[in-house]
């Protein structure tokens, strides 16, 4: 016995049977106690058993030896099936199977059968199939019918390894094969060989078994039909469809299963439904399908959205009705089900159904006519005249409720909460902020809170943070080497300030970081991050060196905007307390205050100037038109600007110089703005038409503007003063939108939109959530009147986003802008058309986004956008693929809101092309709506 245990410990399971053989029952009982102890030892994973390989080998020995010692079948099965004894190899693998069968040799067949069935009932049955199969063979008992065993059996009989022959010869096949249809998960091998000609094609193998008479053909047909009726994943239903096709049910077999086909046609996946539909079609054509059943199936199929299924069904009905045209009963039975299609979302389907009903209406009785006419109220207005022609006076009156435009409520900006009252409150929020993706508002609140309390209650704050923040060593490591670690946006958080308070950041680090800021900015996204990073590090340095009572730049509003009056008040307090404003903090504060136009020095500017401090003067200048130009916020001449000019250069000029581009250049010089922002050709025209003196003056002004930020702003901000080379950086981190960005430049959404457009066009490939910028920008601070062209261009880019959630964000932004009265519908339309023409916007995505927007009740808004987009789109050659879908959305909108305005150029030509294309049909529908005339008043309602 000692020797045996030694062999087990060494992992020599192969030696076990020989050593176990001579033992008496009493000795085996004793051995079992030892084995249990060893098993417990293995479970502890200590010493040599720490390594899984060693442990696995020993476990196999324990498994084999124990299997030979147990006398009860239940105990033996539990032992063999236990999870901890099969660490690396299940009992089904040859290295375990051989010795295991050897120790079980000579056991009573009834006992072996019992063990086999017990093992088959366990979750591990599929893995243990080789063992169970052998036990069943030795016991001569029926095969277990458990799911695991059947799966294992099917795997072992895979046609690839000659399974077809094995299946034919296996005596268990007739019992086990039908169970395959009840498996929750199909064996992988079922889908391995999709080609009918390969020997591994399961459907052919199964059909072959039916032909050879091994299994009943009806069993297989029933199995497939049940499974298809029950539904499931497309891969599974696809397999059973293939089996069914290979079995090729006879007309009698199909006829016997009419309710099954009906169920599949109503609820199955598209493929399953199509198969069932064709079976029912054959039955109907040969007159084997009762009218009542056909009517029920038709009602269910016409409720489906798949156009192909619906059309096929209508074709079938047309045929049946034509053949039995005189039969009043058939007509009365079928026409009401055809009328179900009157409410179908596709107007083409409606039209076909209407025509079909019209053809057979003469054979219908009075009551049926009335019912059909009532259903016809569901028809699209496009078919109204046709319906009147069919039903005449029976048709219910058209509902003439005025269209109400439903737009979301305009966003309300919220005040940032009051600063923390206690250390405890602040510490809780610090923990929340550190544990979640940073949100700009929370960041601002916590940063200001840390600065305030570090000034007021330094020691309690430090103590509370020390207690609350685990893993302090981590900070030590991280901030000593902070420059080696890439400080991505998420990591620049208040953690720096917290680490400073905890004494984890070196003075050297605090001194040097700020100096290096701004030197490496080569794209606006980097620049935006740099500003927030600089602000955080500056706050950390202030806390270490000269604590200030509060920060100047903390926004008043959730949009990031800071009220000028608040800033004046803060500066006044600083003066009173003799605190010197920190440069980065003050620069950020300025960017958050709305710049005033030239000469607009109101009371606030005067109060700022009255402070008598340099910062007060700068604020006064900022408020009264003396703010430096932020060149980086304007598009580089000739790069992106004017992308839509081919489609509508006339109106572009007007918006280009209007309030729209008032991004960074509200500096009070409209001319300079045009020089920077306009399209190249316009710019040239402007140069030519002006006199040289003006030009010289503007150049001097431009020089001053470019120099201004360099002298007055800290390094992290200076990139704002130079035109940016690379606004389309392709770095992964720059493709994301960070909520901080909107609060760095809360009054400059045009600039932000400009910087995000490229990211939006490429979003969805490896970034997600980029379109979040659109909703943020749509809700941001903005002057009265329509938003500028860059935001509209960004919106167009977002509309074509790959991900549906991104497109939804674009829709949100569009509706928000519309609700705020800031949407320039025509401009957006032109941008959309331009993007489609240049291939950067997929028309089907445009149709999806606009359809979504329209369905919320904003039909008028979407129509106005489409009215701008359609004329150029209709001129594109060849026509965009999904133009039909776009036209369908347009028709739907026009039907609802009955727009005024002339015909759309190009629409009549397209509609005149005729044919069966979706675009021509929808163009005709739209044309009809527009010609039918506007007139229904439209009410605006913001909800």
């Amino acid at each position, binding site marked *: 016995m000692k020797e045996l245990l030694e062999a087990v410990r060494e992992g020599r399971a192969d030696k076990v049977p020989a050593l176990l053989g001579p033992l008496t029952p009493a000795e085996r009982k004793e051995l079992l106690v030892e084995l249990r102890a060893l098993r417990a030892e293995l479970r502890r994973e200590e010493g040599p058993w720490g390594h899984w390989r060693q442990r696995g080998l020993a476990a196999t020995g324990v498994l084999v030896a124990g299997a030979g010692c147990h006398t009860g079948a239940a105990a033996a099965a539990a032992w063999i099936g236990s999870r901890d004894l099969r660490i690396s190899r299940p009992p089904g693998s040859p290295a375990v199977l051989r010795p295991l069968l050897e120790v079980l040799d000579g056991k009573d067949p009834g006992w072996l059968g019992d063990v086999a069935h017990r093992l088959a009932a366990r979750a591990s049955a599929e893995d243990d199939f080789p063992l169970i199969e052998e036990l069943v063979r030795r016991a001569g008992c029926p095969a277990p019918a458990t799911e695991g065993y059947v799966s294992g059996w099917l795997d072992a009989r895979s046609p690839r390894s000659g399974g077809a022959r094995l299946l034919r010869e296996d005596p268990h096949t007739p019992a086990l094969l039908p169970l395959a249809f009840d498996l929750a998960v199909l064996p992988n091998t079922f889908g391995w060989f999709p080609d009918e000609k390969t020997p591994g094609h399961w459907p052919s193998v199964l059909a072959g078994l039916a032909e050879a008479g091994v299994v009943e053909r009806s069993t297989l047909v029933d199995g497939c039909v049940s499974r298809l009726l029950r539904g499931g994943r497309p891969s599974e239903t696809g397999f059973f469809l293939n089996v069914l096709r290979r079995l090729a049910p006879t007309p009698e077999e199909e006829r016997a299963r009419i309710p099954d086909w009906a169920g599949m046609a109503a609820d199955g996946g598209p493929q399953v439904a199509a198969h069932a539909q064709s079976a029912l079609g054959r039955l109907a054509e040969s007159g084997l399908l009762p009218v009542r059943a056909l009517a029920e199936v038709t009602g269910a199929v016409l409720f489906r959205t798949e156009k192909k299924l619906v059309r096929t069904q209508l074709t079938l009905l047309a045929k049946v009705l034509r053949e039995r045209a005189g039969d009043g009963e058939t007509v009365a039975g079928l026409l009401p089900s055809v009328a179900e299609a009157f409410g179908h979302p596709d107007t083409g389907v409606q039209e076909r159904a209407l025509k079909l009903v019209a053809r057979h209406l003469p054979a219908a009785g009075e009551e049926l006519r009335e019912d059909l006419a009532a259903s016809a109220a569901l028809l699209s207005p496009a078919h109204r005249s046709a319906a009147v022609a069919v039903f005449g006076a029976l048709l219910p009156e058209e509902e003439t409720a005025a269209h109400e435009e439903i737009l979301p409520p305009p966003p309300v900006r919220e005040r940032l909460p009051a600063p923390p009252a206690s250390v405890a409150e602040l510490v809780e929020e610090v923990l929340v902020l550190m*544990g979640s993706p940073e949100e700009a508002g929370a960041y601002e609140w916590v940063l200001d809170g840390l600065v305030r309390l570090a000034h007021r209650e330094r020691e309690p704050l430090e103590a509370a943070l020390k*207690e609350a923040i685990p893993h302090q060593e981590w900070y030590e490591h991280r901030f000593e080497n902070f420059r080696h670690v890439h400080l991505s946006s998420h990591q620049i958080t208040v953690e720096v300030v917290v680490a400073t308070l905890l004494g984890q950041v070196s003075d050297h680090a605090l001194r040097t970081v700020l100096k290096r800021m701004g030197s490496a900015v080569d794209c606006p996204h980097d620049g935006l991050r740099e500003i927030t990073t600089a602000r955080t590090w500056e706050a950390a340095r202030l806390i270490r060196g000269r604590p200030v009572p509060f920060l100047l730049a903390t926004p008043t509003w959730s949009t990031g905007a800071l009220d000028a009056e608040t800033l004046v008040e803060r500066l006044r307090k600083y003066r009173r307390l003799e605190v010197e404003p920190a440069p980065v903090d003050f620069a950020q504060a300025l960017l958050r205050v709305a710049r005033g136009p030239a000469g607009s020095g109101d009371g606030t500017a005067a109060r700022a100037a009255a402070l008598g401090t340099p910062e007060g003067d700068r604020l006064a200048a900022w408020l009264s038109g003396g703010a430096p130009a932020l060149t980086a916020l304007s598009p580089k001449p000739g790069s992106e600007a004017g992308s839509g000019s081919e489609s509508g250069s006339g109106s572009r000029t007007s918006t280009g110089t209007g309030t729209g581009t008032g991004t960074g250049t509200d500096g009070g010089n409209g001319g300079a703005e045009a020089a920077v922002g306009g399209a190249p050709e316009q710019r040239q025209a402007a140069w030519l038409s002006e006199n040289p003196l003006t030009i010289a003056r503007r150049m001097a002004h431009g020089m001053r503007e470019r120099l201004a930020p360099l002298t007055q702003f800290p390094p992290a901000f200076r990139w704002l003063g130079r035109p940016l080379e690379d606004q389309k950086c392709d770095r992964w981190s720059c493709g994301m939108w960070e909520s901080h960005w909107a609060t760095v430049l809360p009054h400059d959404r045009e600039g932000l939109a400009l910087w995000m457009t490229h990211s939006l066009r490429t979003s969805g490939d490896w970034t997600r959530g980029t379109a979040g910028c659109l909703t943020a920008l749509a809700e941001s601070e903005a002057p009265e009147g329509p938003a500028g062209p860059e935001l509209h261009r960004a919106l167009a880019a977002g509309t074509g986003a790959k991900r549906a959630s991104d497109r939804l964000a674009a829709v949100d932004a569009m509706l928000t802008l519309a609700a705020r009265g800031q949407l320039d519908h025509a401009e957006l339309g032109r941008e959309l058309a331009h993007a489609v023409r240049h291939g950067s916007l997929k028309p089907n995505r445009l149709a999806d986004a606009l359809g979504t927007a329209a369905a919320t009740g904003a039909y008028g808004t979407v129509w106005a956008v489409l009215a701008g987009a359609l004329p150029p789109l209709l001129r594109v050659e060849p026509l965009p693929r999904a133009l039909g879908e776009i036209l369908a959305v347009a028709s739907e909108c026009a039907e609802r809101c009955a727009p005024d305005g002339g015909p759309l150029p190009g629409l009549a030509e397209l509609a005149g092309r005729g044919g069966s294309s979706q675009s021509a049909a929808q163009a005709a529908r739209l044309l009809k709506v527009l010609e039918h005339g506007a007139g229904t008043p439209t009410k605006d309602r913001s909800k």
Partner: protein
Amino acid sequence: MTRSTQALAYARPSALESGAAGRLLGLETSGGLTPAGAQPHPTFFSGFLSSPQTAARGLLAVADVAAARYHDPTPRPLLDPVVTGNGDRLRFESFSGCCGVYARLDVLREGLDGAETGHGTTNVDVNNPLREALSRMTGDSPLHLRVGPGELAVTTLDGSVVEKKVPLPQRWLRGFAEAQVATAGFDLRAELPAAEAVRFLRSLPRPSAGRASRAVGWVVASGRTLRPTTRPAPGAICLPGPERLAALQRVLRQAIALRVYGPVATDGVASSAAWEVVLPGMRLTLTLSPGTTRGFSGEGGVLEALSTDEAAQDAELVSVLLAWEPRIDPAELAERSGLTVARVRAALVRLGTAGRVGYDVADAAYFHRELPYDADRTERHNPRLVDARGLLAAGAVTLDGESASVASGPRVYRVREVGGQLRCTCTWWADHQGRRGPCKHALAVRMARRGTAAETSAAAGGENR
């Protein structure tokens, strides 16, 4: 995970039969409580259904949810739906294996052709042949429904022939019971007519390979329809893992309206919501958890109420007075029990967590039903409650006026009360800020404040398997 096994034994499989006398849907029952006590195969109903096809599809939807695991669609046998006879209606309930979707089909008096039902709760057998039969059911020829063996019992009940053994994880039980308590604070937020309901539900993404996405969407009532949006705008209803509404597709064609219920204030974070499809004579309601990977079991919204034994005795008293009412009227119960209405409400919450009452958002009322599982003490074994009792027993809680500190391991956590809510400096609170119930530290502090005897609690904790 703590789990036990539930063994169900049915006299024979449920089946849909067609005979000379018409169609008969025989739903077999196993185990359950009735006013007459526990019965192996109770009978609740025998009569005709007003809208057979709608009922069949509603039942399929309930069965779909019972079989679903939306975050990880590995098929795994779980429990059969549960049916409750409330006298005037039958309620079929199921809970998804992922603990995130609760489905209930209420067949109202009109749907039962005015017939009365028995009282009690039991499991009903749902098997593949039955599902197929229900799927292929067409036409509205009369359908006789039988829940329970009825009079046939005498001849054929010589031993159970269908046995199912299914694992019963504690979290599943807790989630099932808690899902309804979670809806008790819901209000009607939107109602869509049939056409809009169909359009909206069809616009939702379908599960791919049975799996629902983790996306959290939002919808806002907008005129007669729902406007999808990416952000929690004011008044928005959360729609996390929209694929999980797939079961509603079963009844789209029969839908009369769609009603959405949600919490009054969403606070901009993901929350659960109830989606009710109104059908002729019945209602099908799906309640979704706040995330595809977030089961109801972890929501912990009722932990505070359970942290003390205040409501326990009231609950005992109230439970005696319940008699499978379809709508429980707290005022009437208060009168009968001598408790205040507020205490009755607290007692009902407590009974809800034990699966002994459900909540019907459409009626805005609790109804009596006793889940036929050994779920009685489940909620007491909530890991957070157990941990909190442990902390309390170990003397880790130091009360200090407004604030308190809890020593746990090498760290000390500060717990502070603000506006009735306890805030803590632990990771759980930082992650959820109380939206998924209090953390164990806050619970321990709450217990300490209320002076719950640590000894008895520790004893209860020790019973935990």
